[in-house]
């Protein structure tokens, strides 16, 4: 039986949600934007806070902090704008972050453990801690109230 195999070298963006750090593949990140005016529209989708206008685009703001850390971010300083796949298409979305994002290059992620939730894509070993690499598509699929349609996107 072979042991876990590390993935190839990639770049990751390290983001902070409250006291915890997470990583997402840098190829999915468009920009780090200063927090602008959050527009709340009536809706029934869990995890989505509202929308922001950014570069003449309307982006959904998805608060993943509550799901990952158990509490919403009372204050955030930036939005990390990421490309989120929806089937064959992608759409940009904004994730509120506390700040202090970093770009890590040449990193080799360790594979996810068997008991890790589906949204864990792997782990990055930093000197101070192991940082969870997020699979944003699966994270959204596991959000409360996510329809089966989302799971189909994962296939």
């Amino acid at each position, binding site marked *: 039986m072979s042991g876990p195999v590390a993935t190839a070298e990639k770049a990751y963006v390290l983001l902070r949600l409250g006291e915890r750090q997470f990583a997402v593949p840098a190829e999915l990140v468009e920009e780090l934007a200063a927090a602008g*005016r959050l*527009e709340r*529209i*009536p*809706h*029934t*989708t869990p995890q*989505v806070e509202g*929308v922001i*206008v950014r570069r003449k*685009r*309307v*982006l*959904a703001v*998805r608060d993943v902090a509550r799901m990952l850390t158990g509490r919403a971010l009372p204050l955030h300083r930036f939005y990390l704008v990421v490309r*989120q796949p*929806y089937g064959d*298409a992608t*759409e*940009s*979305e904004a994730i509120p972050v506390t700040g202090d994002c970093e770009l890590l290059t040449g990193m080799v992620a360790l594979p996810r453990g068997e008991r890790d939730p589906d949204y864990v894509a792997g782990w990055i070993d930093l000197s101070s801690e192991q940082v969870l690499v997020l699979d944003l598509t699966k994270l*959204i699929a596991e959000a409360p*109230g*996510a*329809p089966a*349609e*989302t799971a189909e996107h994962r296939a």
Partner: protein
Amino acid sequence: MIAPAASTEARATGRREPRPVIVFEVAGRAMAIPAGEVLEIRSTDSLAGEAAAFEPLEFPWIRHTIEREGTLHYVVNLGVLFSLARTRPTLVLFLRGAQCALLVDRIERMDAISWVFALPRAFRGSERSWYLGLALFDDEVVPMLNARGILTPEQQAQLAARLPETLAGTVPA
């Protein structure tokens, strides 16, 4: 018809003739609807004698029906439907070609718009039916209501099944 853009990132191709929209307010929130979808606007006071009580338990945002031009309209309290703060609506917007009338607080203005942003795909709930998309007025994002999506065909069928006989005759087949 105001066309939604192909995505949240792209405007509709080509220039379209600006179409009039009515911007109104519900519990302090601005919303809009294509003016062509509105048949009539009346004050709630002026309709006091015309509304019939109808309170289906599954639809707490409906408390009355009103007949207009031979068609029964379910009066939808948008503030309750959208879980906004309680207010006292002063106006009723009767919709053209839809079986509902909307209770709103006030008309803010008439405006014109050529296109709306498609609702971001992150939104997956009832809002996909409620809105045609999102309009941008001077950096203010305003949901553009879909007159035919406030009540889905399934909801209309459920409501029709619960109507008392005295009202059922005015529901279109």
